[in-house]
């Protein structure tokens, strides 16, 4: 009982400090350089923190680091896009202060503890990067097509050879589809995008997609390309090619609208955020561990469930309290309206803040860092 009281008290103190820090930031923003808020010790941070992990976040991390540098010019944030798996490993070993990951830590990982965290500290894990995945194609003069999940499955299984296949024309009345060969391009490297795409296919195409969700493309054969940029370059240079890529990288190509419930929905940040709002939190996790079981089969109007959700992970309490303050400040910024807007502008992601329930959960989890 006493232990619990102490913990609550500590959390309250930490939250108080962060509020003070936020007040300081806000004051700085409104009246730059007038010295207001500099009295608060937490207002001006300095130091370096290192993070590593998902490469899907790298464009967003770039925007966040740039934005945070304007608020806290003495803080250096490093983010090494080594990939989710490597990032999680480094965070577990204590090599980095925070981690970006496409797949959340398992409960076993959480129970085993993390290298940089103080003894008994919990894990703070929040979704920060929600990106629609687009089935993007290269057909002369066609910028949008309706593709049902089963049709997409058949395309990527190589069962549909031509773009004027009856399965495609049936869903696209009035579109003059050419006799071009379909070239489906998948990722050659292990990737969170592939895992989310195959997860969505498995949930929606049912029997038409016989594979389990996986980071490595499960179908043997077919066009493969390295990284998101490789897929984009291949699809762009090949008439009739189609691939799956993060929405932020797919400009200039045609986008497929997917069938959700009875309606056709195009990829959009709002639709992606809506789909997250339609999902439920994973059970058995702490309040600070905001992890979603994505509802891939939602039928809510306007929801776009073909999404990738990438998380940031940090300790509730750090061994080194200074690191805690820096991470808290950075996470506050990342999940703020400004931070999310910066990522949306730079990476085409969906702002968390467009879903009210979600952003409340995230900010209370972030407030517990320190």
């Amino acid at each position, binding site marked *: 009982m006493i232990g619990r009281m102490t913990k609550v008290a500590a959390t309250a103190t930490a939250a108080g400090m962060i509020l003070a820090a936020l007040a300081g930031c806000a004051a700085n923003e409104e009246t730059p350089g007038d010295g207001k808020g500099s009295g608060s010790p937490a207002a001006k941070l300095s130091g370096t923190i290192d993070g590593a992990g998902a490469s899907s976040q790298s464009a967003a991390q770039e925007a966040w680091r740039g934005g945070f540098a304007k608020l806290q010019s003495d803080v250096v944030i490093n983010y090494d896009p080594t990939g989710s798996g490597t990032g999680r490993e480094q965070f577990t070993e204590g090599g980095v202060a925070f981690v970006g990951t496409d797949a959340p830590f398992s409960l076993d990982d959480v129970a085993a503890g993390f290298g940089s965290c103080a003894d008994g500290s919990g894990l703070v894990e929040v979704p920060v990067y929600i990106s629609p995945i687009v089935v993007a194609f290269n057909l002369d003069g066609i910028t949008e097509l309706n593709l049902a999940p089963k049709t997409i499955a058949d395309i990527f299984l190589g069962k549909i050879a031509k773009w004027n296949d009856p399965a495609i024309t049936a869903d696209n009345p009035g579109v003059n589809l050419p006799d071009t060969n379909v070239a489906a*391009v998948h990722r050659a490297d292990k990737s969170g995008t592939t895992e989310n795409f195959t997860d969505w296919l498995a949930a929606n195409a049912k029997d038409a997609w016989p594979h389990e969700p996986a980071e490595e493309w499960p179908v043997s054969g077919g066009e493969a390309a*390295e990284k998101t940029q490789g897929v984009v370059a291949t699809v762009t240079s090949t008439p009739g090619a189609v691939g799956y890529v993060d929405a932020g990288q797919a400009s200039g190509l045609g986008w497929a609208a997917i069938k959700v419930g009875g309606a056709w929905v195009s990829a959009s940040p709002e639709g992606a955020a809506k789909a997250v709002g339609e999902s439920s939190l994973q059970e058995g996790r702490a309040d600070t561990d905001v992890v979603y079981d994505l509802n891939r089969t939602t039928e809510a109007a306007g929801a776009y469930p073909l999404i990738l959700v990438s998380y940031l992970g940090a300790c509730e309490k750090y061994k080194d309290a200074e690191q805690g303050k820096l991470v808290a400040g950075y996470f506050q910024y990342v999940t703020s309206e400004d931070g999310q807007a910066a990522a949306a502008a730079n990476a085409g992601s969906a702002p968390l803040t467009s879903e009210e329930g979600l952003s409340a959960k995230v900010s209370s989890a972030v407030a517990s860092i320190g």
Partner: protein
Amino acid sequence: MAVLAVLAGVLIFLAVEGGPAVFYKQGALPAHATSFWQLAGPLAFGSLWVAVIALAFAAPPAIGVALAATVYAPNQRFGRLLAAVLDLLAAVPSVVFGLWGLMILAPLMGPVDAWLGRYLPWLPFFAGPPSPTGRTVLTAGLVVAVMILPIMAAMCRETFALTPTTLMEAGLALGATRWEMVRWAVLPGARSGMVAGAMLGFGRALGETMAVAMVLSPTPFLVSVNVISSDNPATIAAFIASTFPESRGKQVGALIGLGLVLFGVSLLISVIGRRIGRKAVPA
């Protein structure tokens, strides 16, 4: 000594970290492989296959350029220019070749693949169906060929230049044409140098990572001599590069094990190369 120590260090690292991977079972291996050799065998084949294609494309122009620079036009501006341009090629980073292959060469090769698939499908190499993107083993081999051309040409040039001038002049004085003189006086003496150049190029082609990873459309576990299809054997180096970032634990060990296999293959190739070179010398 230092070189030997570094080499031994690399070998020990690979053997300690990657050796146990040989016994890994499904689950610990990348790409859902059921055994280490199911993964390593086709990848080793892919590495060798790309290197062989690259060597086949690079050898004739390398020898031709070297002859042009030493025998046909040794002191003329053209010969020197050719040599200088080739040396410059050696300084281009492989990522640049990869980008070039991906964005320029592959789209150009698409129609070539289609043509080969239509008119020569009875050759196992062109069995098709042709890749619409041109990102095939053939294209990857061509890109790597351009990359290994400078080192091969330089080796050939050095050895051709060692041919005694008196020998060449004697040949010409006896009424031989330039080409006959090259065949009788220059090439036999330079055989070991040419083999050495080829082996150096082959070694580089085996290990080439970025350019192949960017250009090739790989299918793991595939062994095929078809050079124009979308389904191509993957290479060890490119597979390691593209799988490593998202791997953890034992899977990393398995990738290092693949590195050990590549090391073994390279060693074997250089031993064979030395044999060929030595046999050739006495002539």
